[in-house]
């Protein structure tokens, strides 16, 4: 555990990191970004908390059970979105033209419209959820291993 100044600053900064990560996930179909990239940004914020507080303290707030459930839900939503297009083929963009994320963007350079994309923004959110849970579990497990503790089940 580092000094009190570092802990306080980390507590304030994590909010900005989380908001920026969520922006990167949500605008994946307009600007560079998407599910994995935004998830990695959020996990880097969590690593900052891991360094400021020790891994022992962090494992009291972040339970391994919640991470596992979050990861599975994210992955299941992703595959179910693929199955939902089975009227035509797997992964068919069935939301293009419908009221949810359904505007058709014009071809050529344009200022980006957020409400376009079809199934892509929901898939970005599902992948972001899975990546946050997965990478957070990996980072926490490695930190706890080298701290000398055992992670069972």
């Amino acid at each position, binding site marked *: 555990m580092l000094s009190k100044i570092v802990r306080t600053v980390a507590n304030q900064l994590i909010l900005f990191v989380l908001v920026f990560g969520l922006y990167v996930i949500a605008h994946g179909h307009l600007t560079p970004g998407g599910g994995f990239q935004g998830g990695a940004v959020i996990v880097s914020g969590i690593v900052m908390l891991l360094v400021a507080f020790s891994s022992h303290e962090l494992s009291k707030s972040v339970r391994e059970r919640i991470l596992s459930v979050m990861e599975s839900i994210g992955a299941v939503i992703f595959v179910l979105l693929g199955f939902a297009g089975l009227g035509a083929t797997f992964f068919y963009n069935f939301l293009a033209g419908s009221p949810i994320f359904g505007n058709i*963007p014009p071809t050529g350079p344009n200022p980006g419209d957020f409400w376009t994309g079809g199934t892509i923004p929901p898939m970005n959110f599902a992948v972001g959820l899975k990546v946050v849970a997965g990478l957070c579990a990996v980072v926490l497990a*490695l930190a706890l*291993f080298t701290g000398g503790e055992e992670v069972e089940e």
Partner: protein
Amino acid sequence: MEYVPVNFPFLAAALLVGISFYIIIFKRNLIKLVMGIGMMASGVNLFLVALGYRAGGNAPIYTEVPEGPMVLSVPQALTLTSIVINVAVLALMLALVIQIYRHTGSLDSEKSRTMKG
């Protein structure tokens, strides 16, 4: 880039892959082996991104893009998938190195062998 007479990114990618082959074959520390594989992944990713470059091109995104040609976008998608997969592979390798160290107490690949013949 068009003023450099040699294809500089491809040379850099070949150098990265060559040095990492040397590391994987000749170094005995397990952590160095893992770093060598990470370096080889970086070399291959650099090669893929450099394939798509077009002279004077912009990023392949339609939101507020200036005039001119765009670089190819397919190698960027391939590189992104490759980066994600290599994150998983490196995490698994590091977890296994930690377990080998806990069981045998050494990170040297000669001293931590348990199987022969």
